[in-house]
């Protein structure tokens, strides 16, 4: 095998390139992050707006001392909702009640709802099956079937709120019973009201 001067120069050039070529070193680390956000709807006790306050059981106690010109018995409690769904509704139902022992009348109860919202929240719209829209202060009880108390067409959070402290919509329920000598003495009745947050 013989190499001409021309080929020799070519080989020499290749050799020099091989000798002085810079090795290519890897110098990157890549992190591919996949974040999947699931649907979530949460109800908490307004007085305990934390994980421990989810799905609250709120007790209202109405104690009547009949008197002339007496003050009606009232109590209240609130709950907060949060959802990242763009469509939601708060449904109200009455799963159980027994007002027989106190001899109470349905039209002697009054329920009042008020809605407030945190600074990073979008409130919903009251609605209901009573004749016309359900107005705050509607007489108790509502129809036996479940009905919509309020609904929304956007997620409750209007802005980033990493601590979830101001992205809630709050509903306060006030219950009132007329003061009346008609009620049985030392008797107790009950009414269960259940609120469900649904985001289809």
């Amino acid at each position, binding site marked *: 095998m013989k190499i*001409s001067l021309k080929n*020799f120069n070519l080989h020499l050039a290749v050799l020099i390139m091989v000798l002085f070529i810079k090795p290519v070193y890897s110098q990157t*680390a*890549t*992190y*591919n*992050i996949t*974040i999947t*956000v699931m649907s979530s709807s949460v109800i908490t006790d307004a007085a305990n707006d934390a994980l421990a306050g989810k799905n609250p059981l709120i007790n209202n106690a109405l104690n009547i001392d009949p008197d002339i010109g007496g003050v009606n018995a009232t109590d209240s409690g609130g709950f907060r909702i949060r959802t990242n*769904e763009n469509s939601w509704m708060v449904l109200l139902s009455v799963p159980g009640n027994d007002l027989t022992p106190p001899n109470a009348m349905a039209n002697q109860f009054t329920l009042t709802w008020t809605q407030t919202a945190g600074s990073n929240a979008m409130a919903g719209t009251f609605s209901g099956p009573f004749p016309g829209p359900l107005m705050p202060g509607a007489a108790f009880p509502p129809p036996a079937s479940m009905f919509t108390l309020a609904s929304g067409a956007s997620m409750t959070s209007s802005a980033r709120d990493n601590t979830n402290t101001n992205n809630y919509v709050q509903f306060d329920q006030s219950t009132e019973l007329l003061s009346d000598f008609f009620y049985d003495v030392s008797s107790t009745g009950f009414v269960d009201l259940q609120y469900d947050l649904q985001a289809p």
Partner: protein
Amino acid sequence: MGNKKRKTTFKATTFLLIALSIVLLLPTKTCSQNSITDSTNNLNPVFNFDFSGTPDLTNPSFTGTQAIRLRQCGCRIMDTMGACTGGMNITQWELRATVSGLTNPDPEIQYMDVTIMNLNFTLMGMSASTFTYSAPYNATGTFTLEDIMNNPVIATFNGSTFGPGMGACNRATNGTNNQYWTYSSDLGFTHDFFFDVMTYTPSVVYTIVCTGGNCP
């Protein structure tokens, strides 16, 4: 000149001998090397983090730890065994990060929502001690990918001594390259009811960049 061409012939064996001699006589000139590996020294690692969760009243939510090994060889000239024999050291290098991936139309999750927490640099090996580092981000604090976009330098390493900077040059010692900095931190993601129900895919790419001395 002219039509007369001189031709010189060499036997292939002679040519190869000359070439081999050149290789043996020249010191191995290797410019500053750097590498990023995972915890088992696989070069150029690609990590996949899958976070899935539902917004709830807790903060922060799901996290995942990231850890990589950083090596920067400070030598410019090494012998055939990989030991430093001369040349100027590099004096500064940086760990940088770039982020991308959140390009969907109006995604609710933005770079500001992905956090990096518990930033930590751990030194392994002797020679690496010739470098000190400073991290612009608070090691115990939390910063976001948006912070990185505004300031991509995660940490700056400075060294003024001649010789192997990160110890990667000391292959002659044990051949294991067990001198490195470990960069570790936690990726965090905060539960927020503001985020749309969907999947987001941001990415973070870390690189080593020589910024001082005789950079290659």
